[in-house]
């Protein structure tokens, strides 16, 4: 064989970098086609020197395309391998290339959404946010750095993987690996969402259920404490054994305390399930959000929440 044109590592890096702008010209007609063509340009320039070949290549990569922006990386890897073979004389026609793109984008989008949008981002986001809520800059930094390291590593290595195995990848896709990744991500995602509902959806019902005057010894008798620091020590010791209810003589039980005895976060999970139902009925999330604020204001006005 005479001179083979090969895409160098630098070319592939250039494609990978540009691939990050895939969704930039997202449009209702052919969706991600502009960004895809933009990403392919370094490869097309390298592989085809004749103008009519370049025109044909550009046109073929401006066809309809749409998938999850990250799992698109293996697709572009395979496409690079195909274009390289074609430029070296292999009989690969336009339909074959478009067929590979369309054939891969569907199943891969089905993996990208649950893995990235519904598992990795909620987990990293919740981690970052929980640190950020205390005002620590570590929260946003953690989220931003971890996310981008994971993202770019994924883009690069899966693109390289696609490029190396070429069309062989379609066999892997049907091998059930994708199904397993999706199932694993869904399990982890649901587990974390369950935890987040408990921790971060806050509903507090304030009505008082009962007021009980406690017996001597069940609360700290503030008037009988020793003077000075000894008093503080004694109070802390008693607090340690009595708990929060020991602070006052009258023990107030709110509706929330009763609910928490059943299981903490019961109201939060019920609310979440209710919203799931409403969303399934096609009610817009925005309407629900506004309704929740209205409920909050009414609840506060009626001294209920």
């Amino acid at each position, binding site marked *: 064989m005479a001179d083979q044109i090969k895409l160098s590592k630098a070319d592939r890096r250039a494609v990978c970098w540009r691939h990050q*702008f895939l969704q*930039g*010209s997202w*449009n*209702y007609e052919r969706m991600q086609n*502009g*960004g895809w*063509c*933009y990403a392919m*340009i370094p490869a097309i320039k390298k592989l085809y020197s004749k*103008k009519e070949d*370049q*025109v044909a290549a*550009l046109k073929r990569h401006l066809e309809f395309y749409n998938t999850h922006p990250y799992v698109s990386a293996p697709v572009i890897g395979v496409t690079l391998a195909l274009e390289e073979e074609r430029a070296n004389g292999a009989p690969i026609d336009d339909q074959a290339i478009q067929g590979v793109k369309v054939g891969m984008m569907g199943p891969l989008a089905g993996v990208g959404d649950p893995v990235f949008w519904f598992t990795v*981002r*909620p987990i990293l*986001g*919740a981690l*970052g*946010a929980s*640190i*950020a809520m*205390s*005002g620590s800059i570590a*929260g*946003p930094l953690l*989220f*931003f750095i971890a*996310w*981008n390291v994971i*993202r770019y590593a994924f883009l690069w290595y899966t693109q390289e993987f696609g490029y190396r195995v070429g069309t062989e990848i379609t066999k892997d896709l049907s091998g059930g690996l994708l199904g397993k990744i999706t*199932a694993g991500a*869904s*399990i982890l*995602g649901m*587990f974390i*969402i*369950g*935890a*987040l*509902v*408990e921790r971060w*959806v*806050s*509903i507090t019902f304030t009505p008082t259920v009962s007021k009980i005057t406690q017996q001597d010894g069940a609360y700290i008798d503030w008037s009988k404490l020793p003077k000075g620091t000894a008093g503080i020590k004694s109070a802390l010791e008693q607090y340690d054994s009595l708990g929060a209810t020991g602070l006052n003589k009258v023990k107030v039980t709110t509706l929330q305390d009763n609910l928490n005895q059943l*299981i*903490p976060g019961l109201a*939060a999970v019920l*609310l*979440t399930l209710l*919203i799931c139902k409403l*969303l399934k009925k096609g009610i817009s999330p925005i309407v*629900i959000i*506004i309704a*929740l*604020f209205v409920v*909050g*204001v009414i609840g*506060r*006005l009626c001294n209920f929440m």
Partner: protein
Amino acid sequence: MNGLSIILVIVVAFLAGMEGILDEWEFHQPVVACTLIGLVTGHLTEGVMLGGSLQMMALGWANIGAAVAPDAALASVASAIIMVLALNGGNVNTKDAINTSIAVAVPLSVAGLFLTMLCRTIAIPMVHAMDKCAEDANFRGIEIWQILAICLQGIRIAIPAAALCFIPAKAVTNALNSMPAWLTGGMAVGGGMVAAVGYAMVVNMMATAETWPFFILGFVLAAISELTLIALGLIGLSLALIYLGLKEEAKKGGGNGGGGSGDPLGDIINDY
């Protein structure tokens, strides 16, 4: 706000708008966008806190198929600017400023949505222009149209952000301070519940008979406050691996046994 801050706010807004469509670096996520706005206006800590609270609400916001989620980019940028204005105006409780900004962010996130749809429509003639460039192998032309399309999405957020910067801080502060306690309190109560909407969106995407038990496990274990989020993540990961491994085993067992002794999956679950 001084001139430099306004310019930097517009830059941050531009980045967030770009990211609203690209979804790569995640500059539009509240925890990043609010932090950056806070940083350039000298209210870093408050920005980080607002970003954290808003992020908890926006965790499940993702545009999948026909489902439309509120626009995180405009919500985080606009609410951060409003919070900064309120803080600049003088005597304001930080907590109130944060809670009110969150409530204001929600209607704005709807406006952001319509702007996105507008941009995605304007992008159609742009890709037609790319087609024309392709006809004569004009690489540069295609690149320029792609970059212009991205800038369009940046401007989508940058213009509203710039407009907000020119609202006098005093006016925002006065409005905030004149709000009755039941209103700010009620907004805080609502804000506490709103996170459920994002979670519900995620649940609807992933819930199957197979995954519901894991939701319950996560929910129950989260009540143990010693378990940090990282610990919970590791438990979840282990559960997923164990489950998938057992499922694989069960499949193999079923093949060998030919269904003779009954239910291999059941046996494994019993042993487990």
